[in-house]
């Protein structure tokens, strides 16, 4: 059986990928990064709304999680791409979006929106757990010093909650890197589309899907290393190392910085 596999093609895809593939990989990564950032922001908003004094905001937060965790992501992606413009009566998702420096394909925009909004529902639960893990006395101490809720959250609660939030956040991003493959269904040219198109031209599924699986493994593997390093440095403070939170955060991101600084 193994004899039927064209190892040369696999080697080619792994060791000599063409620039079209790298372009696709780049698309995968930036969709994942933007959608994750969006998820964190939406998740934070929803987590704060959940404990709001205003009842409709609490409802909205609960409804958000109910809908986006309770329905398939694929349905959400299709809905945003094909349905949003029709439902809203105006063009939320244009064919192409001109952002001055570069243009963004409408399908990519829809993909990012759907992935980000979906991710926000999961991030809400993670951020909520992080906030809940902080002793009630911290908020009371902050308030007794005259801090308002938003200031206390920003300066006292969230910096401490971050330590609880970061490990599951890393897992979410690992997931996100792979889940981006779903946007191939609305015609975004990312890593999986690249494999799928080669397969449909050659009918060599094993070769192309094995190779693309390898590249997903590379992405998640690199991220795992970065994540482990971040967590190691964040937990260093629990051993009592005298580093301020800011210093710890800077230290934690140093390896990521090393890639950029070349």
């Amino acid at each position, binding site marked *: 059986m193994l004899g039927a596999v064209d190892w040369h093609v696999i080697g080619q895809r792994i060791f000599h990928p063409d620039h079209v593939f790298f372009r696709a990989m780049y698309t995968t990564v930036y969709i994942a990064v933007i959608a994750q950032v969006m998820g964190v922001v939406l998740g934070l908003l929803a987590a704060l709304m959940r404990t709001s004094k205003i009842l409709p905001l609490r409802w909205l937060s609960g409804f958000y999680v109910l809908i986006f965790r309770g329905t398939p992501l694929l349905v959400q992606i299709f809905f945003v791409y094909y349905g949003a413009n029709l439902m809203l009566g105006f063009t939320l998702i244009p064919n192409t979006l001109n952002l001055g420096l570069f243009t963004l394909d409408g399908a990519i925009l829809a993909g990012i929106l759907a992935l980000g909004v979906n991710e926000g529902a999961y991030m809400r639960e993670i951020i909520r757990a992080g906030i809940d893990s902080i*002793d009630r*006395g*911290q908020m*009371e*101490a*902050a*308030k*007794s*010093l*005259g*801090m*308002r*809720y938003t*200031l206390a959250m920003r*300066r*006292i609660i969230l*910096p*401490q909650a971050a330590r609880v939030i970061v490990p599951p956040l890393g897992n979410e991003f690992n997931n996100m890197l792979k889940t981006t493959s779903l946007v191939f269904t609305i015609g975004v040219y990312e890593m999986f589309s690249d494999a799928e198109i080669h397969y449909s031209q050659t009918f060599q599924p094993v070769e192309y899907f094995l190779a693309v699986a390898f590249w997903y493994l590379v992405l998640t593997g690199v991220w795992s290393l970065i994540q482990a390093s971040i967590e190691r440095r964040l937990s260093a*403070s629990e051993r*009592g190392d*005298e580093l*301020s*939170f800011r210093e710890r955060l800077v230290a934690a991101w140093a390896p990521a910085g090393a890639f950029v600084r070349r």
Partner: protein
Amino acid sequence: MSDVVMEAVDVHKRFGRLEVLKGISLDVSKGETVCIIGASGSGKTTFIRCINHLEKIDDGRITVNGHLIGYRQHHGKLVEDSEASIAKQRTQIGMVFQRFNLFPHKTALENVTEAPTRVLGTPRGEAKQEALRLLTRVGLADKCETYPGKLSGGQQQRVAIARALAMKPALMLFDEPTSALDPEVTGEVLDVMEELAHDGMTMIVVTHEMGFARKAADRVVMMDGGVIIEEGTPEHFFEAPEHDRTKQFLSKIL
């Protein structure tokens, strides 16, 4: 004494169907130190938490420096005040907690400078200088750069006192400040508090430390079952407590 700093009039507080404060009235004058004693469940901690509106009250009113705390008059009725206004009132009232509640992600110095710089807008340099002065005053000048996790309970509580003082409050509340401490370090915290009382700070202290009450308190208030049952000088409590509950309570803790 005239200059009333804190005035509580007929304060009621319910947790669901349980009434924990059944009409507390208490005046505290400028420079006075009042100790509140009583068994657990007597409502003393709840009362002190009402004074800076960490607990809402159901009836009655509390004023600090003449300002109604947590509520405002609206068509003759009391309605809860805005968050901003409550926060502003709290800058006048320092609070020290049983469990310290220092900010673990900030150094001792940062704990003290955080609120003055962020809430009062004090310039960083000035706040730092004042924090150094306060930490020196509580005997921790050498621990400025230390994180709370590396400080003993007694040291943490002294930082917490400095943190509250940094806001230059008109009134200091202490909620069982030594109850969570090892016996051998309660002394260092009580010494700081005693000094503060002698320096003329207005203080309300929920405590079981009768030694502190004797040395520093102007008045002792005994609470039981959500009411004040006896009030007097520390000497009165040591020599001739009147109420049976007071005698019973004192015989247990002395």
